[in-house]
Each structure stands twice: as C-alpha cells, then as structure tokens.
C-alpha cells in the first residue's frame, strides 16, 4: 500500500498518510478513499493498519479499567465520582441505609473499577471492592501518558516504587496517589511521574528517571530486596 509517512514520523491533523482507505486505524480518518491523521502523534503501521499514537488524548473509560476518583456527590441511591475533566462515574446503591453505611463523603478519594461505559454514563463496578484512599499526594497527569508511566509489564512504575519506597496508586484516568516513607521520597516520586509525563517519548527515559531518583533519594527510599 502506498504510504506517505516514514515509520514513527510526527504527523498533524489533516496530514495525508495513505491512499488505501481500508487500512485506517486509531487516530486516523478516511476521506475520499484516503487516510489522514486526525491527531498529533506518531504515525506507524500496526497490525496492517495505519495508526496515529497521539501525544495527547482524553481518557476514554473502558470496562475493567481501574480509576482513581473523588466523591463529588452523595445521593439517596449512590455516589457520583469525579474522574477528571468531563467524566463522572456513578456508584449505584439501591439501599439508602447502605449508602450511609459506606461512610463515604464528598471529597473522599476512591480507587474503583469501571463496570460499563456507554449511553447511560460511566458505572462503577460494585463487586470489586470500593477502596477509600486514606492519605497521599493526589496528582493528575495526562491519561495518554499512563501506559508509559506503568511501562512494559510494570517496569517503570516498579522502578519508581523500588527506588523511592513509595506506594503508588495509578488510575487509568490520569489520577495518581503517592504515599511514601518520607516527604523526600514522595517528592522524588512526584518528580519522576512529572518527568515521565513531560518526556514520555524521549528516548532513554528509564535511564533518566533512574538517574533523577538516585540523585533525589540516593535509591535509599526502600530497603533493598
């Protein structure tokens, strides 16, 4: 198929990518049988489709996603959870007494799983435990950067946890809660997360994160395992 980009080229909305409209994938659209970029990102061919991996994209909730949210409303039949920007999740609890017995209130931070996301909005899975987060620094990063923060098989997030000794809860919606053994350790973890957000696509990221953390906490955040 004729393509008009080099592998991993930065492309912008409207840029012609291919003549073969049948192979239009994520981040692209077709017009007149041709494929164009719909977002700014890297163009590549994946599974025989032309895709654009966006640098920025709003979080799209999917069933099974674990997210961090802030309780924004308490109603007789459940809770409304703020998941950032335009997203509200609902926890439906038919029984009023049960709503009260959860002890949740506006401003509480919770770690929950999405059951469904569709025309009726985002519904939280009640069967998975609704975990209230009792303490920590809550920060928000761009949801598109979450996969990079986690890394291959959790390599990046585990590196930060190991070097700082922090517990880090990552919501797919971009909300992150950090709890550490000391303010310095937490501060180092926050810096590392921000570095990943800003430099997610610059090569050598793992090395830079590790270097930053060793400078900040000397890798002594946690007892070596």
């Amino acid at each position: 198929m004729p393509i008009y980009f080099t592998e991993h080229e930065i492309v912008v909305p409207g840029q012609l990518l291919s003549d073969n409209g049948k192979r239009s994938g994520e981040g692209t659209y077709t017009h007149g049988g041709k494929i164009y970029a719909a977002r700014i990102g890297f163009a590549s061919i994946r599974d025989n489709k032309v895709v654009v991996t966006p640098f920025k994209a709003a979080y799209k909730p999917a069933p099974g996603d674990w997210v961090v949210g802030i309780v924004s409303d308490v109603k007789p039949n459940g809770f409304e959870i703020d998941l950032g920007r335009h997203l509200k999740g609902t926890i439906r609890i038919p029984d009023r007494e049960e709503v009260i017995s959860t002890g949740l209130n506006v401003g509480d931070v919770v770690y929950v799983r999405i059951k469904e996301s569709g025309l009726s909005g985002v519904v939280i899975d009640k069967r998975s435990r609704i975990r209230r987060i009792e303490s920590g620094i809550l920060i928000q990063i761009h949801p598109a950067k979450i996969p990079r923060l986690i890394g291959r098989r959790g390599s990046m997030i585990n590196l930060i946890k190991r070097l700082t000794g922090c517990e880090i809860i990552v919501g797919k919606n971009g909300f992150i809660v950090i709890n550490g053994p000391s303010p310095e350790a937490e501060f180092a973890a926050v810096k590392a997360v921000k570095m990943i957000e800003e430099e997610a696509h610059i090569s050598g990221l793992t090395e830079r994160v590790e270097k930053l953390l060793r400078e900040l906490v000397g890798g002594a955040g946690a007892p070596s395992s």
Partner: protein
Amino acid sequence: MSRPERLIDENGRRVDGRRADELRPIRMEVGVLDKSDGSAYVEFGGTKVIAAVFGPREAHPRHLALPDRAILNCRYHMTSFSVEERKPLGMTRREIELSKVIREALETVAFLEEFPRAAIDVYVEVVQADGGTRTAGLTAASLALADAGIPMADLIAGVAVGKVDGQLVLDLCDLEDKYGEADMPVAMAPRFNSIVMLQLNGRMTVEEFKRGLALAKKGIDEIYRLQREALKKKFSKISPEEV
C-alpha cells in the same frame, strides 16, 4: 492614527513596506499556557493573539449537553488595551458575532461525535489588534485544539485580504483595514480546499472577489505550512523509540 496620503506608493509598496501579496512576519508557538488542555500564541505583525482550549469536559449547564456529540463553545475577546482607543470591558456586539463565526469554522473540522455529552471550550484572547484578529484568532484556536488532543480532520488557517487604493492586498494591517475600501477575512481547511469562514466588509467587483479568494488561498497555504511546523516543533524533542 490618521489616514496616510497613499496606502500604496508608486513602487507598489504598502504602508509597512510590503508588496501586495506579502504576508507580515508570522510567529507561532504551541503550548504557551499551563492550565489549559491546549494553547497557542500567534502573531501576524502587530496582531497578537492567544488561544486556549478546555475539554472535553462536562457541559455546563447540563441540559445543553448533546447525547451524540460534544458541544463546542467559543469566545473571541479583546483586551481593553489591544486597540488604539481603550475598549470598554465586557463583550461588544462585534466580539459576539466573531465568536460565532469562529466557532462555526472550528465545528467543521473537530470530530465532536467522539465525545458525547461533553463540552469543548475555546477561548481566543486578542492581546493586540493590528488587523486580521479573527483570522489570526482562528488560526491560533485550531492549533490549540490540536494541542489539546482533540481529533480533527484538518487544521484551519486564515488571513484577511482587502482592497486598498483600488488594489487587492493580502493580510491587511490596521491602517489598511481602516482606510481601505474592503476587508475580507477568509479561512480554509486547506486539506479539503474548502472555505470555513468568509466575511466581507466593504465592496468589491466580482472579478476582484474572485482574485481576492485566490490571493487569500496563496497566503493560507503559507500559514498552514507554518502551523504544521509550529505543532511539530512543540513535540520535536520527542523520539519514537519508546512509544
């Protein structure tokens, strides 16, 4: 500011020394503000605008939300000191009209159906006005939308053409806008070779109108090139190895 004796001299030079088909020096920078989801600064000579985008976010008030797509809101606004005579605070009728035509232009390229029930808010702030603020504002707004990660069919580039001392000129400055015979802001989605904003203030012959559009297209092609460059520049530190 008074009217110069001639807006075009015997050598065909304009008040600022440009030829008829020449753009002013253009500067563009993407991602200039921290707290918005996307932003851009655009300068066409003395015209300076900032645009910022918030969203997709919850639509307010909620009854305005649409079940199948996002609503796009737009506000074009000028700072009080952007013009020669201080502009009173608050939105003027002109600003409300321009907000509408800018919004309608952006709606033609943004894939709003990707975000049901949400709102995308676009704010254009004119920091200094020296002619062509709506087209510079729209040019900046489309960069800010792209920077915010909103899927779009194309960027939008705009420029004003006009008639000055009987001649067609590209990218009017304030003096030419005030004392010329016509001002025609044009914006296009260059990928589709289509017009997304078109207004006329003044009078032209049919032949002038047609030539004016062609002249605008020439400027727009150059502006579009600069837009793509500015967007890519913001992310140029990036290398793909770790995607």
